[in-house]
């Protein structure tokens, strides 16, 4: 967990290259997700009624490769960004080592299953 004010601070505080890379990843994926997620919310909830997301509408939309790519990019980036964010929280609030280990194991497993479900779903059409 890095509490940095600047990129230089982050470099000094990072215990490992992996931790520094996650710090950078959170900022880059965040920047990309701002556009992808706000666009997604606008298109599927504000521009049209979310009741319009019927089975047929979803299947029609996902038959286009561009939408598949858009949705899979959101799925992947949000999953990594969200799970890493939750990891920061777990490391902050779950204080005992053994508890932290199994909380993380269960959480990562659930996230991986849901990611697989989403990916298989997207590419099954």
């Amino acid at each position, binding site marked *: 967990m890095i*509490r*940095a*004010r*600047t*990129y230089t601070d*982050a470099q000094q505080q990072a215990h490992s290259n992996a931790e520094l890379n996650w710090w950078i990843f959170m*900022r880059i994926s*965040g*920047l990309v*997700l*701002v556009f992808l*997620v*706000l666009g997604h*919310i606008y298109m599927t*909830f*504000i521009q049209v*009624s*979310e*009741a319009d*997301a*019927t*089975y*047929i509408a*979803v*299947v029609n939309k996902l038959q286009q490769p561009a939408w598949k790519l858009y949705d899979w990019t959101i*799925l992947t980036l*949000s*999953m990594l960004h*969200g*799970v890493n*964010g*939750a990891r920061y*929280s777990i490391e902050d609030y779950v204080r005992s080592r053994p508890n932290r280990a199994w909380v993380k194991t269960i959480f990562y497993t*659930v*996230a991986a299953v*849901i*990611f697989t*479900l*989403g990916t*298989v*779903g997207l590419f*099954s059409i």
Partner: protein
Amino acid sequence: MYRGREGQWAWMLHRLSGLAILAYFLIHVISISLFMFGEQAYMALHTTYELPIFSLGLIAVTAGVVYHSLNGLRIIMMDFTGMGVLYQRQMFWGVLGLTLLATAYTAFIVIGRLLGGEG
């Protein structure tokens, strides 16, 4: 900057909104993935989403995502520019203001649609 006053509130709201969005996101992916099991499985759940309470819930989701996005941009500015650190308090109020504005717009559109009977 992360201790006391605006910085700490911004950080706390960022963490809370992040965890809330993650919870929504995981359920959203499961729910949408139901279309793999055919129209009946998908629509069984999705007709309940037409209840007004879910539309109102989505306004809250939008508010959370807009706050998290804008405050994320604020964090990036703080991390990479000195100006960002200097103006982080002002930017926090800017983030809150823009979030309220975007939420009000969403609520206006969605509640208008609900009252118009379009679900």
